[in-house]
C-alpha cells in the first residue's frame, strides 16, 4: 500500500561490482528515486517509500539473489524497514 508521505527515505551502498545490479534494480523499481554518487558510495533518495525487490536484482545479476545479501554492502538507510523474502521496503508512514 502506498504511503502518502513525501519525506525522503534513503539507502546507501558501497560503490562496487556486487552492488551494481542492486542499484540498477532499485532505480528501475522506484521511478522517483534519485541517485547521488560520492567517492566510494552511492546514496539513493526517494520520497516516501523505496522498495528493493529480490526478483529484479536476480534478473539483473543473472542468478538467484538472497535479499539478505544486501547487508554485505549496505552502508546506511533512513525510513522504517519492512523485510520479507521478496522485498525490502523503506517507508515513512506519516503524510
Amino acid at each position, binding site marked *: 500500500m502506498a504511503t502518502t508521505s513525501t519525506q525522503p527515505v534513503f539507502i546507501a551502498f558501497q560503490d562496487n561490482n556486487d552492488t551494481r545490479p542492486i542499484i540498477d534494480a532499485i532505480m528501475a523499481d522506484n521511478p522517483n528515486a534519485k541517485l547521488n554518487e560520492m567517492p566510494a558510495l552511492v546514496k539513493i533518495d526517494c520520497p516516501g517509500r523505496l522498495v528493493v525487490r529480490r526478483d529484479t536484482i536476480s534478473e539483473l545479476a543473472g542468478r538467484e539473489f538472497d535479499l539478505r545479501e544486501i547487508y554485505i554492502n549496505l552502508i546506511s538507510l533512513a*525510513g522504517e524497514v519492512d523485510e520479507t523474502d521478496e522485498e525490502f521496503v523503506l517507508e515513512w508512514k506519516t503524510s
Partner: protein
Amino acid sequence: MAADGNMKPAKKLSLKENYAMLTRGLDWEPTYQKKEDIFRMIDFEGIKIHDWDKWEDPFRLTMDAYWKYQGEKERKLYAIIDAFQQGNGQFNVTDARYLQALKIFLTGIVELEYASHRGFCMLGREFPGAGPRIAAQMQSIDELRHCTTQIHAISHYSKYFEGMANFPEQFDRVWYLSIPKSFFEDACTSGPFEFIVAISFAFEYVLTNLAFMPWMSGAAFNGDMSTVSFGFSAQSDEARHMTLGIEVIKFLLEQDPANVALVQKWIDKWFWRGYRLLALLATMMDYVLPKRVMSWGEAWTIYYEENGGALFADLARYGIKPPKYADVTIKEKGRVSHEMWSVFYANRDAVNFSTWLPSEEEMAWFSEKYPDTFDKYYRPRFEHWRQLEKEGKPFTCKCLPQLCQVCQWPCLYTEPDDATEFLHRETEYKGETFHFCSDGCKDIFADEPEKYVHAWLPVNQIYQGNCFLPGVDPTAPDFNPLVEALKYMGLKPGVDGGLLKDSIDAQRWEQWTSRPANIHEGAYTDFVRKTTNG
C-alpha cells in the same frame, strides 16, 4: 528420513517464521526464579512495557545468516587490508596530514566501539523480551568486531608513523579524550531503556550517518583503502543497528502513553550529547582531511536537517517533537569546526596529533562553503596567526580551559545568536558553581545533578595534582605542572602534537615518499625538492 518413510522435505520456513523460531521459539518462561529477580534493571527508569511480544523485529537476521554474512564481510575486509599492506598503501594516502585524522579516529572513536559492545552486552542480558535481547546480543558482537578490525587496520600505519602505539593509554589520559569517554560512560551507567534510546536511536539512527558516510567517503577520496573498508564494513552492521533504534522508539511509544515524555527527554539529552561529540568529526571533515568531499555545514544540512527532519516528521504521530536545541545546531553549523580547530591549533602541544593553519586555497574553500561566517569571524585570526608563524612566534594558548561539567568540552562555544560572544552558562548546586558549554548541557545537569557532580574533569584534576607520573615531586623548585601533565598523558614534544611542519611524521613522510607532507603547503624538507629538481 522420517520414521514413517515419508521422503518429502519439511516446508521451508519464511523469513518471519524462521526469525520467530529463533527469538520467541528459543525463549522460555522461568520456573524456579521470579521474572523480576532475573530482570532487575527494567523498572527503575519508569518505562512501562505491557507486552514484549509486540516487539516487531525490523531486520530478521537469523543466526545462520548472521554468521554467514558477517564472515563474508570479514573475508572481504581482510582481502583489502592485505592488499593495502602488501602494496605499501600507507604511502598512497594523500599526505602526512591525513594521518593526523587517523590518530584522532584511533584514540577518540575506536574505544567507543568497545564501550558500545559493553553497553549492548548489558542489554542482551537485561531485556526481558527475547526479540530485543537477541538484537542487542548481535549488536554487542558487531561492536566488538568494529573495535578489533579498526585497531587491526590502523595498526599497520603504526608500523611507520608515530603517535598511535599507545592509544588505549591516551584514551584514558589525554584531556580532550575524556569527552568521547564520558559520553559512553554516561550512557552505560544509565538504565537499559535510556541506553538504547541514547545509543541506538539518538546516536546511531540520527547522528552516525555523519560519521560513516561523508567521513568514510572522505577517507576513500584520500586514498585510504584500509580505513574506508573497515568503515564501510562497520557501517553495514550499523544499518541494522539503526533500524533497531527506530524500532525501539516505536515500541516504547506504542506500549504506554506515559513513555512519551521520558523518551522525549532522552532524545533531547542524547541528541545534544551526540551532537557535541560530533564536533570532533566536524573538525576532522573541514580541517584535517586534505581533500574534502563536503563541508560539515553541508553534511549537517543533508543528514540532520533533511533526513533527520523526515524522521521527526514521521514520529510526530506519537507526539514526539524534534530534539530540543536542534535549532542551535543549525545556528552553529557555520562555526563549530572553525572554533574547534582554533583551539586545537592554539593548544597543539597538548594534543596527540599535529596541527597547521589553513592555506590560502583552503581559506577560499571555507569562504565559499561558509559565506556567512568564515571571512567575518575566522579568516582574520588565521591570517594573523600565519603572520605570527612567519615571525617565528606562533600563537600559543597559555592556560587550560574552563570545562563543561556535562560534555567535558572546554567552554569554547559562542552564543547561538552572536558568534562574537562567548557563551556563559553556570549553575549553583549545593553551594558549588558548575559551568556549561551550552543550554543543552545545562539542562542535562539540572535534570540529574548527582550524576555529574562527580565528573572527572581533566583540567580540574591536573590542578589538584592528580595527573602526574609516579615519583614526580610537586614541591620541587623547577616543578612545572603542565609539562608533567603532558608526560602523564603520554604526549611527547615534537612527536605527538605541535606544528605538522616540525613533526617527525612530516619529515619521514617526505623522506620516504618524496611528496609534500601537507599538499596545501608545499615541501617542508629538501627531500621533496631534490626529487622534483631531478
